[in-house]
Every structure is written in structure tokens, then in C-alpha cells.
């Protein structure tokens, strides 16, 4: 059943509406939520929502509980290929838990937050941005690692990145929910403005596995055994551009590299010369690779997981 989570009037004959689809089976009232589309340029979650919604409705007899799917927390951003909320300077994922007496974006954030409170689990799906391509990964604040890492492993992702706490991240949806006892896992995968179908399929299987382990689903799950890495097993190295130019990668994402192996080059297209040869600083897995070719000094080109 599709319902409104938030609605607000726009100036000219239009309402902004944030919707969810509630899929309910069995007798349990427990709730599991999938949210995506906070950033309007991140679309990988669209395919996940579609596949999951379709699958669960086709297998409703195996569902026990409430599964709420929110495919577009920022509908105006998705419509206009805008990362943030159009005409609002702040990133939507920096204003949670919102403010019921604030501006429209803040009241929307507050309505979303209140709607999610109390769920057994919330999965917040992101898709990097237009600049970087990510392998499927779960990102967890170190403060919540003990609780969330076991759930994150169920999601069939390649990598679990436990990151340091930072004050600025306290206004994300995940932090806001986790800090009041509603567990929330953040998934990052793929690249902005695109859908990577095999990532979507893989994550849906992971979500079904987690649903099964939490008692929301009792059917079959098609999971391939894969090696998962947790960042605490090693270190994450950042590779930033040393100069400005055009980045031409030599590899695809998700490759194990030896120290010194070539990842790509930064070139000057006008003069036809190579400005920088980009090599791996260590043995490790490239789990982030630049997708947008133009780089400035400092632009992130790759992140590499170096296993101890």
C-alpha cells in the first residue's frame, strides 16, 4: 500500500510528496525499512527498491512483518538531477533529525525521521556521487560497530568500512537513528546517475538474507559465497590527484593491486603529454575508483584497502 510520509505545497499548482510502499505479510507488526534517494543524483537504490518490492509482493506468503520501502526521500532532487534539495543550500543528509518548526526541507527530514523511528532495521542506500564508483559496501560509525557489523555482513557486500566518528556526521539520517536506538546501516555502491544492475541484484539478495535472519522472510535466498573484508582487518589508503588534468584509468574498480602497479594516468589533452602516472601506493583492493575524468589537484582518484 502506497502512503504519504510527507507532503508540502509548491508555489505553482504542485505538491511535493514523499511516499513509501508498505508490504505486509503474516501477523508480525515488526517493521523493516529501506530508504534511498536522499541525494537526488544517486539512483542505484531505485533498482533495489523495484526488485525488492516486486519480489516481496510475489512472495508475500513468505513475509512475516512490515517492510516499508521509501525510494525517493528527495523527489525534487531526483527529478532535477540535483544532489541536494533544489533551492536549499544544505545537504539533506546533514539536517537530520530535522525540525518540525523549520523550513520545508527540515520539516520533511523530521517527518522521515519520525516515520522510521522504532523500526527493527533501516537500510539507507547511497550511490557515491557522479565522480566516484564504489564496490558494494556498508559504512558503519565506529561507535555502532559492535551492534551493526554482524548485520552488515548479512547484506552480501564486498566490504565493510568502519569509519571514525565526526561531529559533522552527527546530522546524517543514520547517525540520528542509531543514536536513539533504531539501527541503521548505510550502503554505498555504484556511481551517481547510473544503475549497476548486478550490484542491485546482489544487494537485494543480501537484504533478503538479513530479512530472513531477522524473521521477516522465510523463503529461499540466492547468495553466493564471497570473501568479505572489514576495514579493521587493514587500512584504507586514499589516492588523490597530484595535479589537474584528465584522469584515464588503466583498471576497473574492484581489483587487487600490487604496490607500484599502474592505476591510471593524468594527462594534458591539449599538449598530448602525461602529467602524472598514478600507481598503487600499496598491495590492496581498489574499492573506489574515479568515474568522472576531469580532476583538480586533490581530487580523489581511488581508495585502496590494504589488508594486514
Amino acid at each position, binding site marked *: 500500500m502506497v502512503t504519504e510520509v510527507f507532503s*508540502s*505545497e*509548491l*508555489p*505553482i*499548482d504542485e505538491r*511535493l510528496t514523499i511516499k513509501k510502499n508498505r508490504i505486509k505479510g503474516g501477523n508480525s507488526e515488526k517493521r523493516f525499512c529501506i530508504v534511498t534517494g536522499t541525494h537526488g543524483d544517486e539512483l542505484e537504490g531505485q533498482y533495489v527498491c523495484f526488485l525488492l518490492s516486486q519480489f516481496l509482493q510475489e512472495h508475500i506468503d513468505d513475509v512475516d512483518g512490515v517492510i516499508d520501502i521509501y525510494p525517493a526521500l528527495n523527489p525534487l532532487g531526483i527529478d532535477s538531477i540535483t*544532489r541536494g534539495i533544489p533551492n*536549499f*543550500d*544544505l545537504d539533506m543528509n*546533514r*539536517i537530520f533529525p530535522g525540525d518540525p*518548526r*523549520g*523550513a*520545508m526541507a527540515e*520539516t520533511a527530514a523530521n517527518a522521515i525521521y519520525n516515520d522510521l523511528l522504532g523500526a527493527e532495521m533501516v537500510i539507507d542506500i547511497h550511490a557515491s*556521487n557522479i*565522480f566516484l564508483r564504489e564496490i558494494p559496501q556498508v559504512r558503519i560509525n565506529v561507535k555502532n560497530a559492535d551492534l551493526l557489523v554482524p548485520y552488515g555482513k548479512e547484506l552480501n557486500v564486498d566490504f565493510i568500512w568502519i569509519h571514525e566518528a565526526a*561531529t*559533522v*556526521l*552527527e*546530522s546524517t539520517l543514520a547517525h540520528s537513528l542509531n543514536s536513539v536506538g533504531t539501527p541503521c546501516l548505510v550502503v554505498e555502491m555504484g556511481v551517481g546517475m547510473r544503475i549497476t544492475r548486478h550490484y542491485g541484484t546482489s544487494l537485494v539478495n543480501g537484504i533478503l538474507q538479513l530479512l530472513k535472519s531477522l524473521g521477516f522472510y522465510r523463503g529461499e535466498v540466492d547468495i553466493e559465497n564471497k570473501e568479505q573484508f572489514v576495514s579493521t582487518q587493514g587500512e584504507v589508503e*586514499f589516492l*588523490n590527484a597530484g*595535479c*589537474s*588534468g*584528465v584522469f584515464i584509468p588503466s583498471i576497473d574498480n574492484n581489483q587487487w593491486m600490487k604496490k607500484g602497479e599502474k592505476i591510471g594516468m593524468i594527462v*594534458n*589533452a*591539449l599538449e598530448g603529454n602525461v602529467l602524472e602516472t598514478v600507481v598503487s601506493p600499496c598491495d590492496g583492493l581498489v574499492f573506489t575508483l574515479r568515474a568522472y575524468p*576531469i*580532476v*583538480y*589537484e*586533490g*581530487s*580523489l582518484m581511488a581508495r585502496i584497502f590494504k589488508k594486514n
Partner: protein
Amino acid sequence: MEKKIIFRMNSPYRDDFRITGFEFGVGEKTVAIVGAMRGDEIQQQYVCAQIVKRLMKIENDGKIDKGCKILVIPNANPFSMNLEKRFWSMDNTDINRMFPGYDKGETTQRIAAALFDTLKNYTYGIQLASFYMPGEFVPHVRMLDTGYQDTADAKFFELPYIYVRKPRPYDSTMLNYNWQIWNTFAFSIYSGLTNQLNTDLAEETIHAIFRFMNSKRIVTDLQRHGYVSEIVTDDNHVVVQSKKAGIYTKLVSANHAVEKGDLLARIIDPYNGDTLDEILSPCKGIVFFAHYRPLVLEDTIIFRIIEVK
């Protein structure tokens, strides 16, 4: 005066990105003034340009106190201003959300790191700031309530208000916040407008900054007196929001005195011109902030009124 390039970076197809600073006087790092950090902060750039012009004369007249160094950076983000974009031209990140910066990080983190390396350790830091919502303000000093703020010194600007507000998590990456953490007395000055130029309001801000420097014996440049500043917090603000979306016609501006029940604005039906809502003042006070775009959403904050009891 010494003109310095504080940060330079080449670009694939544009001219080099340069942040230019103007140093006056010799001695201790005394006051740093930063103008536009976003591409639409035209008013802020104008104010700094006028400050540079006046400081050149003051320095030539020997009226900068011995042992005091003043740095003015009129624009920390000329690339975005040249494109009329608010944030960093390539990835839309905000330099003022990157402090204290990271010199091995992403581009805007590196810019922030270079800026902060130059700006830290000044005794006083003044940033010509702008608000994330479109509108006009009564010129004021804004300070984050970090526990390090100094409202007594802020009074030397003699602007009508000193607005002290609680920091939110995202404020921890702003220049003002980091200045304070690094023991600089930091002041954000709101000069009234963003993305527009009002030379009268700019003059008021310029006078305020010179009043401050004069009071602190950094320069000898007597200015006319300003206001006895009133310290306000969110508790003094009455927020007025639109109940309807539509075309917004504003009847009062920032700095207007209003009585309870005064008509402040109308929301007009965009199809037939009917009045959808009349916005009445909920209290007696001074309009501190007034939204100025012609369209409003439901729940838009259109006025902030400082209540007079």
C-alpha cells in the same frame, strides 16, 4: 601593502585558481578579514575591496599601529564567482564546510587547509558571511556559542545586533567555528545581502569593521559612532513561516519596526491573483530577516522578528 598569492592551483582548461591576500602593517598577526568564500557573495567581496582601498590610504598616512598586521582576502573562491555558482565549480562542495581543511585531501579540503594555515593564529578573525536562505538581514555580528565567543569585543563593531546561536553539527567545519577552537576571536559579519549589491548596507559594514579596528587600536581612523549592540539569541527571535505556497509580496523589509497584527506580506494565488494568505506580525518587534525571493514554499521561513517587549 603587500599583495600575496595565498594559494595557487592549475586547472585543466581555465586560468590558474588563485587566492589573493593583501597584507598591511608589520608585526603580529592581528586581524584577518575574509570576504567571499562562495560565488554569490558579491556584497561581501565589495566590502573587502573597499576595506583594501581604505587600508592602503591609512597605511600611507602611517595610521596602522606599530606591531599590527592586517590581512584582507577579498575572495577565496574566484572560480565560482566567475561562473556565478555559489559553491565549488566542479563538485559543488562548499569551502566553508571544509575547515580546518586537509592538505592531502580533496580539492576544497586543500583550499581550506591553505586558507586556514594562513588565517590561523590571528588575534581577531572577521568573516563576511552569508546565510543559506535567500533574504535580507539587519547588519549584525553573528557568533557561534562555542564557549569561546567574546560578545564584549563584538560590541566594538557597534552594529545593531550581536546574534549568538548554538552550533549545529555541520557548523563544526566552518571557518568561524575553527577560528574559535584555535583561539582566534572570530566574528561573522552579515552585511545584509547575498548575490546582490547594496552600497549603503556595505558602507555600514565597512564603518563597523573600522570602528572595531579603531577601538582595538589596530588603526587610527575615527569613524562615526554606530549602535549600542543588543545581544540576541534564538530565544529572542519569533519565526514567521508561510502557511501557503505561492507568489510572495513583501510589505516590510529588514530593520522595519512592526506592531503585533501588522500586515507583513501576502501570498498570492499564481493562477488567479487571489490572496491565499495574509502574513500578520505575531508580535511587536524589529524585522531581523526578510525572505526576498518572489516564490515561497509552504513552511518557508519568511521573517525573523526580534521581539520588543
